[in-house]
C-alpha cells in the first residue's frame, strides 16, 4: 500500500472513530467520495419507485423480506453507477406487469434513491451517533490485542497509541495482524460461516480425507505406504516400528486437518499477504501443507518453494499428542503454500480452482442431491457471498405450496419462479460438481446432471456464455467466482462476516415500513458506517485488515457510554460479549500464561457445554449464559486461581527484572498488618497497587488507587488474610485443621506455561506460612469470575 493511500485510510478511519472520543458523524474520507452527489428530489423517480421498487425494497428504502435495503447500498456511490445497476438487473423476476427499468427510468429512480435514502437520511443517521462516547484508545488496543492476538499490548505499543492516536493504533494493529494468533482468530470467525472444521480429526476420524475420491486421489492415505506397520516379530525392527507408527498416525492427522482447513487457510494466506479477499471465490489455487500436498499430488505455484521444517530436534507431532514422541517428521504443519491440483483425475485433468467454491470441503459441507440440484449450494452462495437470504423471499409464498400440475413449477409457476429465478442459475453453475464435491463434467455423466427443468448457469440476470470463443462452460465456477467478486453485494457480505466476528452480534435486521423511527435511524446508521468500512476495504485492494481496523475504530466496537437522549435505540451498540471457549482460552493464556485444561480442543463436549460449536450438529454459539455455563465459569476461576497464584510468585521480581504476570508489586511476605495488629502502611499501599494492576490487566479497568472497587477487592484480600491468621493461630478449633501448606494442586511445583513440567526444587512453593498466597488466590478467583473477565 502506498503511503498516501495508507494515510488516507487512516484519516477516514479516524473520522469514523471521532477525535473527541465521541462519534462525530463524518462519513467522509479519501476512500469514500467526500461530496457524494445525492441529487435532487426527482418526482418521476419517486413515482416509478413507488410503482416498481417499493414493493420489494420498502417505502423507506430499508428493504423487505424480498428486497435488499437501498440505504447505503453497495452501488449507491453515484447516481450513474446506481442507474447502471438498475438498468441491468431491475426489476427481478418475470412479472409481466412490470417492464424493465432502464434508460430514463433507471436514471430517475436512481436520483430519487440517492436523494431520499442515501443523502439526508444517511447524514442524519450517522450524525445521530454523536451520543456515543468511545473507550480510550489504549483500552481499545488492549481489548483488540487480547481478542485478536491472544496477548496484552506491550508497553511500547501502548506508548505509540498514546502518542500517535488513531494513526498509531492503526500502525500497531497492522503489526498485530501479522502475528500467527490473529490467524487463529480469523479462522474461527470464518469457520463460523463455512463450518468446515466439522472435518477436523478432533470431530471426525479422517473426516476430510474420506471425502476425497480414491480414484481421483490414489495417494490420499500416502502415509500408510510411507510409514508401514512393520513385523513386530523381528526384534531389530521394533524401534523402526515405533517410529513408523508415530509418523503414520501424525501424518494422518496433519494431512486430514490440512485438507479440512484448506478453505480457511486460503483466507489466512490472502489476508496475511494483503491480497484481495475477492480471491476467496476467484483464486486459481488452493492451499496445502507438506502433509496435504502429498494427498493431492499438488504442484506448488512457486516450484522453488519448500515447506518449512522445524529446527533440529523439533518434533511437530508433539503439538497434537505427546504419544507421538517417536515421530521423526520435521515439517511444520502450520506452513501452508498455494498450489494447484493438475494431475489426471478420473474424469478430468486437474481442478479449475476457484477459491473456496471448488474445495471439496465446501462442496461437501453444503452438499446436494439429484433432486436438490445444487440449490442448497446456491442458497449458501447467496447467503455467504452475496448477503442475500433467498429464504426471505418465501414470505410471499401462496398458501398452497404444492404444485403438481405444472410440468416445471420452478420455471412455470410465478409463485415458485420469483425465488427460483434468483437461485437456479447459480445452482446450475455447480453442475460439474457432484454431491460429494467431485468434479464430473455434466457432459460426461448424464445421470449426475440434466439441464431440463432448470435455468441455465448465470447470476443476477447475466447468463454464463456457453458457446463460441468466450464459452465458460468448462469453467463455470471460475466464471461464477469472478461474477461474485464484482457483485456489489460481496463487499457487504464480507463486512457482515467480519462485523459478526469482531463485534459479536448479527447486523440489525431491516426495519419494516411501519417501524419505529429510532429503529430506522439505528439501522441506517449501522448500514452507513458498515458501507464506509467496506468501501475503505475495497479501496485498499480489498484488504481485510483495513476492514478489521475500521471495525475496531467504529463506535460499535469502542462504545463506552450512550446518551440515550441522543441515541434512543442503542441496545446493539457495544461489542461486549460472553467469551466463547476459544476466546476464554486465549484470554487466560494472555493474562495468566496458560489455559484451562477442561476447555482444550480435545474436550469437545466441555466446549459445547460452554457454548461452543462442533461445526456439525451444533453450529450456533450460545451468547447468553445458562446456570450451567456460569457454574463452569466459577469452576474455571477457582481452578485457574489455584494453579496461577503460587506459580506466579516463582517468577523473577527484582528492581531490574520483573517477569511476574500477576504480582508485579508484591511478594508473599507482604502482609497488611504487623504481628501486633498495626497496619503496615507501605505494605497496604503495595497490596492496593497490585490490586490496581490486576484490575487493569485482567479486567481492562483502569482505576485510581482510592477507588471504591480497589478498596472492595482489598477488603476481600484482607478478610481472607485475617481469617487465615485466626485459623493458623488456633488450628485445633477447625476441622479439617488448617495448614501452612497449600492444597497440593495449588502449590508451585509445575511449570504451568511449559506443559506442567516439574519446577526446579529451589523454585517450588509448597507452603503459605502467613496466608498471603491464599489471600491472593481469593482475589484472583474473584477477578477471574468477574463480568469484565468472562465477557470481553
Amino acid at each position: 500500500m502506498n503511503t498516501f493511500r495508507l494515510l488516507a485510510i487512516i484519516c477516514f478511519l479516524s473520522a469514523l472513530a471521532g477525535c473527541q472520543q465521541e462519534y462525530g458523524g463524518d462519513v467522509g474520507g479519501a476512500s469514500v467520495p467526500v461530496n457524494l452527489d445525492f441529487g435532487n428530489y426527482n418526482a418521476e423517480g419517486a413515482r416509478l419507485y413507488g410503482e416498481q421498487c417499493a414493493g420489494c425494497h420498502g417505502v423507506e428504502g430499508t428493504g423487505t423480506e424480498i428486497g435488499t435495503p437501498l440505504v447505503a447500498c453497495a452501488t449507491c456511490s453515484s447516481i450513474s453507477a446506481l442507474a447502471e445497476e438498475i438498468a441491468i438487473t431491475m426489476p427481478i423476476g418475470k412479472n409481466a406487469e412490470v417492464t424493465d427499468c432502464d434508460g430514463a427510468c433507471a436514471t430517475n429512480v436512481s436520483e430519487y434513491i440517492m436523494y431520499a435514502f442515501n443523502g439526508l437520511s444517511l447524514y442524519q443517521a450517522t450524525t445521530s451517533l454523536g451520543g456515543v462516547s468511545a473507550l480510550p484508545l489504549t483500552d481499545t488496543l488492549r481489548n483488540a490485542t487480547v481478542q485478536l492476538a491472544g496477548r496484552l499490548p506491550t508497553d511500547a505499543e501502548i506508548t505509540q497509541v498514546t502518542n500517535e492516536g488513531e494513526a498509531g493504533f492503526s500502525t500497531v494493529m497492522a503489526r498485530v495482524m501479522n502475528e500467527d494468533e490473529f490467524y487463529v482468530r480469523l479462522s474461527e470467525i470464518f469457520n463460523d460461516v463455512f463450518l468446515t472444521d466439522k472435518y477436523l480429526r478432533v470431530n471426525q476420524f479422517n473426516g476430510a480425507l474420506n471425502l476425497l475420491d480414491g480414484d481421483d486421489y490414489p495417494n490420499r492415505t500416502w502415509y500408510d505406504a510411507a510409514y508401514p506397520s512393520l513385523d513386530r516379530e523381528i526384534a531389530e525392527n521394533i524401534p523402526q516400528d515405533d517410529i513408523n507408527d508415530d509418523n503414520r498416525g501424525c501424518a494422518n492427522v496433519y494431512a486430514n486437518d490440512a485438507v479440512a482447513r484448506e478453505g480457511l487457510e486460503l483466507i489466512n494466506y490472502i489476508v496475511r499477504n494483503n491480497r484481495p479477499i475477492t480471491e476467496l471465490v476467484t483464486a486459481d489455487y488452493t492451499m496445502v501443507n507438506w502433509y496435504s500436498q502429498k494427498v493431492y499430488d499438488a504442484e506448488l505455484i512457486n516450484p522453488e518453494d519448500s515447506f518449512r521444517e522445524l529446527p533440529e530436534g523439533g518434533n511437530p507431532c508433539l503439538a497434537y499428542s505427546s504419544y507421538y514422541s517417536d515421530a521423526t517428521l520435521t515439517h511444520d504443519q502450520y506452513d501452508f503454500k498455494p498450489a494447484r491440483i493438475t494431475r489426471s483425475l478420473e474424469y478430468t485433468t486437474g481442478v479449475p480452482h476457484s477459491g473456496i467454491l471448488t474445495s471439496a470441503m465446501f462442496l461437501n459441507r453444503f452438499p446436494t442431491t439429484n433432486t436438490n440440484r445444487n440449490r442448497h449450494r446456491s442458497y449458501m452462495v447467496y447467503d455467504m457471498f452475496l448477503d442475500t437470504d433467498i429464504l426471505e423471499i418465501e414470505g410471499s409464498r401462496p398458501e398452497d405450496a404444492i404444485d403438481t400440475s405444472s410440468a416445471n413449477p420452478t420455471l412455470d409457476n410465478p409463485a415458485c419462479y420469483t425465488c427460483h429465478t434468483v437461485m437456479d442459475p447459480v445452482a446450475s453453475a455447480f453442475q460439474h460438481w457432484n454431491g460429494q464435491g467431485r468434479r464430473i463434467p455434466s457432459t460426461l455423466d448424464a445421470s449426475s446432471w440434466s439441464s431440463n427443468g432448470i435455468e441455465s448457469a448465470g447470476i443476477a440476470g447475466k447468463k454464463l456464455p456457453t458457446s463460441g470463443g468466450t464459452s465458460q462452460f468448462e469453467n463455470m465456477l471460475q466464471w461464477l467466482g469472478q461474477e461474485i467478486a464484482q457483485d456489489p453485494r460481496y463487499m457487504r457480505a464480507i463486512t457482515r462476516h467480519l462485523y459478526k466476528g469482531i463485534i459479536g452480534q448479527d447486523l440489525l435486521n431491516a426495519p419494516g415500513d411501519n417501524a419505529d423511527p429510532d429503529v430506522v435511524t439505528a439501522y441506517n446508521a449501522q448500514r452507513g458506517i458498515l458501507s464506509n468500512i467496506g468501501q475503505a476495504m475495497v479501496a485498499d485492494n480489498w484488504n481485510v485488515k483495513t476492514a478489521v481496523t475500521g471495525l475496531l475504530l467504529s463506535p460499535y466496537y469502542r462504545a463506552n457510554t450512550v446518551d440515550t437522549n441522543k441515541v434512543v435505540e442503542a441496545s446493539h451498540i457495544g461489542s461486549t460479549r460472553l467469551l466463547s471457549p476459544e476466546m476464554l482460552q486465549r484470554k487466560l493464556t494472555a493474562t495468566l500464561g496458560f489455559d484451562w485444561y477442561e476447555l482444550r480442543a480435545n474436550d469437545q463436549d466441555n466446549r459445547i457445554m460452554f457454548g461452543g460449536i462442533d461445526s456439525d450438529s451444533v453450529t450456533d454459539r450460545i451468547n447468553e449464559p445458562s446456570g450451567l455455563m456460569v457454574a463452569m465459569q466459577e469452576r474455571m476461576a477457582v481452578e485457574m486461581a489455584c494453579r496461577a497464584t503460587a506459580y506466579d510468585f516463582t517468577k523473577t521480581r527484582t528492581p531490574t527484572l520483573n517477569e511476574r504476570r500477576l504480582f508485579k508489586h508484591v511478594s508473599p511476605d507482604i502482609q497488611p498488618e504487623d504481628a501486633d495488629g498495626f497496619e503496615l502502611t507501605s505494605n497496604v499501599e503495595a497490596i492496593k497497587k497490585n490490586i490496581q494492576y490486576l484490575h487493569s490487566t485482567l479486567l481492562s479497568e483502569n482505576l485510581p488507587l482510592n477507588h471504591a472497587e480497589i478498596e472492595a477487592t482489598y477488603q476481600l484480600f484482607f478478610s481472607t488474610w485475617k481469617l487465615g491468621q485466626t485459623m493458623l493461630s488456633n488450628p485445633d478449633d477447625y476441622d479439617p485443621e488448617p495448614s501452612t501448606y497449600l492444597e497440593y494442586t495449588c502449590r508451585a511445583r509445575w511449570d504451568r506455561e511449559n506443559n506442567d513440567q516439574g519446577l526446579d526444587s529451589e523454585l517450588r512453593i509448597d507452603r503459605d506460612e502467613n496466608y498471603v498466597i491464599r489471600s491472593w488466590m481469593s482475589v484472583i478467583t474473584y477477578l477471574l469470575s468477574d463480568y469484565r473477565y468472562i465477557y470481553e
Partner: protein
Amino acid sequence: MKRRDFIQLLAATGMTASLPLTASKAHAAAPDHFLVMVNAGGGWDPTSLCDPKGNLGQYLSERPDARNGGSINSVAINTETKRNPVSGMLWSDTPRINNNDATTARVDNQYQNFFTAYHDKLTVINGVDNGTNNHNTGNRATWSGSLEMGYPSLAALFAASKNPSLPMAYISNGGYDFTASLVSRARASSAGFIDRLADPNSERYHYRNSDQSTDVYSQIKQAQAERIARQQGGEALPLRRQQLNQLFTVRQADNDLAKLSEEKTLIEAVVPTNDHMNNRDQGFKRQASLVAAAFKAGIAASANISTGGFDTHGNHDNSQYQSLGDLLEGVAYLQEALEAAGIADKTTVVIGSDFGRTPYYNSGNGKDHWPVTSVMVMHPTGSGKGGKVFGASNEKFRAQTLNRSTGQPDANGQLLTPAHVNLALRKELGIDSNTIAVRFPLLVDDFDIFS
C-alpha cells in the same frame, strides 16, 4: 405475586437489577410440568409412520416416472395389526428393509411396541401444512408456529414461563432452539463434568471446614455478588447492562447441579441406556436420560432432543424406516426414563420434524421435500388424554381444509398449520396467555386438537 413469578417478570423485563442482594435466592422449586421437543431432523415421512397411504399408485398418472408405480408407499395399509380399533389410529406397515429379515423385524417391532404401548397417551395430528419445504424454515415453523424469524421455540417459551433462572432451564443439544433472549439455552452432554460443577470449590482449594461455618469461598461469592450489583448500577451502556442483568439473574438461582448425576444414576439403574430394547441410538438415549434427570433434579423445565437421518433423498425405504424405528425406540426410552424418575405424569413430549416427504419416489428410490407433515404429542401419564387422531391429509397426501372441532375434512374448514398446532400446544401447556407468550402472538383460530 409469588416470588418466582416476580423474578420471571423481572427477567422478562430486564429489571432484575433492582433485586436487593439481601433477598434470599430465587428459589428454584421444581417446575410442575416439563416439556420435551423431539426433533426428527431432515424432514420425516409421515406416510411411513403415522399417516400411511398404502401402495395404490396414487401418482401413477401425474408422475409417470416415479418409482414404485407412483405409489405413495411401497407397502399396503395393514388394518389388521397396524391399526388401533378403538381410535382408528393407523401406523405404517414395514417394507422389506435392506433385503434383510432381522432389520425388517427389528423396525417392525419398534413400531409395534411404540404404537401399542403408548397409544393411550398419544395424539397424532395429521395433515399439517407447513407451507415450506426448506429445512430451516420448516424447523422454525414446526417448533415456533411461525414461518418468520424471531419467534422462540415452544420449549423456550415454556421454560421462560416456568422459571428462566433454573441453571439448565432449557436444555438443547440441537434443533430449533431460538430463545428470543427469554431464557438461556444449556447444552448438556457430560453428566460427570456437570457433577463436578455443582460446587466450584469441591476440591477445597479455598478453605472450608466440615460444617461450613468457616468458608473462604463464600466470602468470595459474597464479594462477587456485591460487585455485580455495583456494576449494574454504574453501567452506562444498555448492552452491558442487559448482560449484567442476565448474569446476576443466573447467579442468583440455586445451583442444584449435584442432583443431576445422582438422579441420572438412579434412572439408568432402572433403564440402562445400553440395555434397552434393540440398543439403538445410544446418543438419543443418553440425551433422554440426562433430560429426565435434569427435570427430576428440578434444574430444567424443557429440552430439545434432536436426531437425524430423515433426509432420505435416495433409498428412502432402507433409511427412513430405520431412522423412524430408532426414533420410536428412543422416545420409548425417554418415556421409561421419565417413569423411572416419577415424572411421566408431569411431562409432555412433542415429536415433529421440518416437513414431510413427497408422496412418490424419485428416480433414486428416494423421497424429496414436501410441506405436508404430522406431529405426535405424548401427554402426561394419567392425564386422560391420548388415543386420538386429529386432522387428516387427503388420499394423495395433500393438506385439506378441516373442521376446527372434529379435525375431519370440511370444505368450510381451514387448513391446519403449525401456527394452529402451536397455539393448541400453548393452551394445553397453560402458557398461552401469560405475559411472555402474548409477545409472540399466533393470530389464528383455534382447532380443538386436544379437547
